[in-house]
């Protein structure tokens, strides 16, 4: 008798399958992967102002778009597609096999990381080629960038899986999820300069990860002199790290404890 495959190896296999399925759905590839790039092109072309000495709106917006890309490809995509899989009965069927829940989650995380990397490459490419955004040269900044992407993707994946229990049906999921994401984008300094927003909006946004991700991304792509223009007069990267960790724990807790495999 052979042994049952390990949760990790099945998770890797699921990751491969998720990527294959994703790549075959042209609508989702366009919507999830290209949408932030299209937005960057539109906003970058319309708003050509300089918002501080040596800082263009395009730079500011690129940082915001990378951050909200993490939310789009992770949280939004999962919170919409998982209820659909549940409606189809695909989750229930998986539940009836020896594949453990952790393998399913690992598979989703792999899909999110891969699509996130593709999206970041496209966003940076567009930023460099069309909007003269300069890449940081300080290795410290790239280190910050790396942990932001990894922690942000993990957080976004966990919260997307956790939030998938909220929509009652697959068809209604995008009506529940999309407005939340769009409002958070407006409140978190993606489309507008954060410090120009009313203070109640700023305080509301500060509860959620997106505001901290955008601020963290600004610390990477904007000159350090701009830090004084932030709310706290600094980049607050330690605080960003702590808040993302807290949200990651919340997301993992609800994903593991409350995940629904069946409609009823």
């Amino acid at each position, binding site marked *: 008798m052979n042994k049952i*495959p390990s949760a990790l190896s099945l998770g890797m296999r699921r990751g491969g399958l998720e990527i294959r399925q994703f790549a075959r759905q042209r609508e989702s590839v366009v919507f999830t992967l290209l949408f932030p790039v299209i937005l960057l092109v539109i906003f970058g072309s319309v708003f050509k102002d300089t918002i501080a000495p040596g800082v263009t709106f395009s730079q500011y917006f690129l940082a915001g778009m990378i951050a909200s890309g993490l939310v789009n490809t992770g949280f939004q995509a999962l919170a919409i597609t998982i209820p659909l899989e549940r409606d189809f*009965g695909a989750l229930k*069927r998986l539940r009836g096999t020896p594949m453990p829940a952790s393998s399913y989650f690992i598979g989703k995380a792999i899909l999110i990381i891969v699509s996130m990397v593709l999206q970041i490459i496209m966003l940076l490419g567009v930023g460099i080629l069309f909007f003269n955004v300069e890449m940081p040269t300080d290795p410290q900044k790239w280190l910050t960038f790396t942990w932001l992407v990894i922690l942000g993707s993990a957080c976004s994946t966990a919260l997307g899986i956790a939030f998938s229990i909220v929509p009652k049906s697959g068809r209604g999921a995008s009506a529940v999820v999309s407005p939340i994401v769009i409002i958070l984008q407006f409140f978190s300094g993606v489309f507008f300069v954060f410090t120009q927003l009313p203070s109640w909006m700023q305080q509301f946004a500060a509860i959620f990860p997106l505001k901290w991700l955008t601020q963290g991304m600004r610390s990477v792509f904007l000159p350090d002199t701009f830090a004084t223009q932030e709310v706290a007069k600094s980049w607050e990267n330690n605080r960003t790290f702590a808040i993302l960790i807290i949200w990651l724990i919340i997301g993992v807790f609800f994903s593991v404890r409350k995940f629904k495999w069946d409609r009823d």
Partner: protein
Amino acid sequence: MNAIEVTGLRKSYGQVHAVKGIDLSIASGEIFALLGPNGAGKTTTVEILEGFRTRDSGSVRVLGFDPRDEGQAAREWRNRIGIVLQSTSDSGDLSVIETIQHFSGYYSNPRDVEEVIHSVGLEEKSGSLIRKLSGGQRRRLDVALGIVGNPELLFLDEPTTGFDPEARKAFWALIEKLRGDGTTILLTTHYLDEAEALADRVAVINDGRIIEVSPPSTLGGRSTAMALVTWREGQEIKSETTNNPTEIVNKLSSHFSGEIPELTVTRPSLEDIYLSMIGQTHE
């Protein structure tokens, strides 16, 4: 050891008592059919056995395991069972062979993928995307995914719904093959001819209780039921219910001196018996 052992199983949803104390023993290698109208408690019972639902009370052992337990032991247990659910429709962006190949990777001793595809008759659709399959072909894929893990125990929930007659016959042959391999099968079905053709024993469940368990040939006293003889006499259709139909036919034969007009001799079909058991009659 029995494959399935259930005693005093109960389950309520709020005020609705779906299962009101069910006892069930299914032997290893047996093909067992659960018959009953919609809402009788069939699905609830089966889903408790499959570990999809919790029970209120009673004891349940499936291959010696309590389906409500979790963790590594549950994985080992799921490795030994196969489940074909009532309605599943995948997103459909994978091909038949990709899907079966992937699912086979979940199990420690899977069946050969090509062989599984062959046994459900999907050879020609092997490379097609699931979304391009017909309803019956999708159902056959469901069955393929249920058996790919080489299960000791297979749950089949209305497996042939939407099959054309030819596909149903092919499916029955597949079940006979699984029987030959010693697989225990718990089948729920709406089709009485299916239960009759496949099952060693049938349980009729109604209103949350099991009314009777017996081989299909003796269900509801069917084998000893009286025969109905009908014939035409002038303008009139006459009938007689009897234990000795041959005797009556002989008498009639000499009465008509030869051919008896419009003669029929019938015993109740499984369907007649079943409908009378659940308190309904033919329309």
